[in-house]
């Protein structure tokens, strides 16, 4: 009973983290659109990192459906969150960043706005990384629970 409650709490936390990451992602894309200095198709003709990043929305939508129907587990979300964190960090923070922080902070007329959206980006990548940690822990717990359940089931079948 206690484990079932814990499982449902963990599911709820996973959903909330996914929605939080989605909201942060939408806000970050909105910042791209407002700045207009780092956008690609479908806003312009160029296919670039902005265009590739939009693939995250169908992935999240598909993932939510598959998770709800029990076809994927926390491992799927760990890969999505971790991959997202690496992609966004490489584009904005990496040594070969195509859109370094200066392009965001210095592009708004009011510096406070630049810092606000930069803080949003920092929070976005941090949430993705921490969410990946959480989902990886759940994934590992499920694998351990699965391994522990298998021998017991096997022993039952031999009777």
């Amino acid at each position, binding site marked *: 009973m*206690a*484990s*079932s409650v*814990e*499982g*449902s709490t*963990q*599911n709820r936390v996973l959903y909330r983290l996914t929605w939080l990451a989605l909201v942060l992602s939408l806000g970050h894309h909105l910042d791209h659109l407002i700045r207009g200095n780092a956008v690609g198709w479908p806003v312009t003709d160029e296919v670039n990192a902005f265009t590739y990043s939009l693939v995250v929305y169908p992935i999240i939508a598909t993932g939510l459906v598959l*998770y*709800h129907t*029990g*076809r*994927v*587990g*926390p*491992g799927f979300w760990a890969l999505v969150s971790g991959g997202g*964190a690496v992609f966004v*960090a490489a584009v*904005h*923070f990496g040594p070969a960043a195509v859109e370094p*922080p200066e392009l965001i*902070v210095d592009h708004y007329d009011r510096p406070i706005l630049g810092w606000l959206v*930069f*803080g949003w*980006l*920092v*929070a976005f*990548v*941090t*949430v993705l*990384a*921490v*969410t*990946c*940690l*959480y989902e*990886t*822990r*759940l*994934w*590992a*717990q*499920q*694998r*351990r*629970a*699965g391994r*522990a*359940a298998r021998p017991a089931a096997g022993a039952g079948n031999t009777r």
Partner: protein
Amino acid sequence: MTATSPPPGAGQPAVRPRPGSAVTTGGVGGAVVVVGARVGLWLGVQLGLAGLLILTGVADTAGQALDEAAGWWMVYGALVDLGTLGVIIWLLGRDGRSYRGLLGPPTTAWQLALGAAGVLAATVPAVVFSGELTSAIYGQDAIAPMFAVVDLPPWASVLSVLVVPLVAELAEPVAYLGVVLPRLERRLGRSWLAAAIVVALWAAEHALYPLLTSPGGGLDWRFAAYRVGSVLPFLAAWTAAYYALGRRLLPIMVARWVLNAGTAAALALGLIA
């Protein structure tokens, strides 16, 4: 592996502090004592050292004495952490609990390694934010003032690399995440609110060290505000990681040790100049 497969927590030790149990976490008074002790120790050690410098004639004014003392903050920080450890041990003895119990559930070697790597990865955005803030306030490629003021002889540098970060990890995250956070959670009944208060208190403490004076005399409040702002994303990331890792403190302590000892080593070797 599905969302409907056996509950992930099956067979795992119950690690969350039980909101109704004062025995498992202690009262909020303990949290006040720990935070108050750290604040008092930071102020006491710096003002005491500054007073000593004036008495021995090394410094002529209070401002000069504080700036001289600030050069040693990466060493005398150990006194604050040792004092914090003393308070934690006193609280544990009073409540009949163990230090190990503050570190969360058992952590295997691979959990420790993977968790510490994950915490370091989650810290990257905070490092970038802090660097941008330093550039915005002190100029492009400027060194953060708390590192620029460090001026240690070789033996003290060795101490700041090998001993101080280790003592800091045994005291600082344990104080805030192992002692203060569970007590506030129990008192407030809302984890997010308790976590927000802990992050705010933890960040505010950083305004107290090192105490620097401004060119016009008096304390450098701009630096104090910068210090709080630059450290805030680190503390938020570590507190979030603490929850994400099932309240395991060891991976956070290891990741913080890598960062702090690495920074101290870079300063000692002149790599940050």
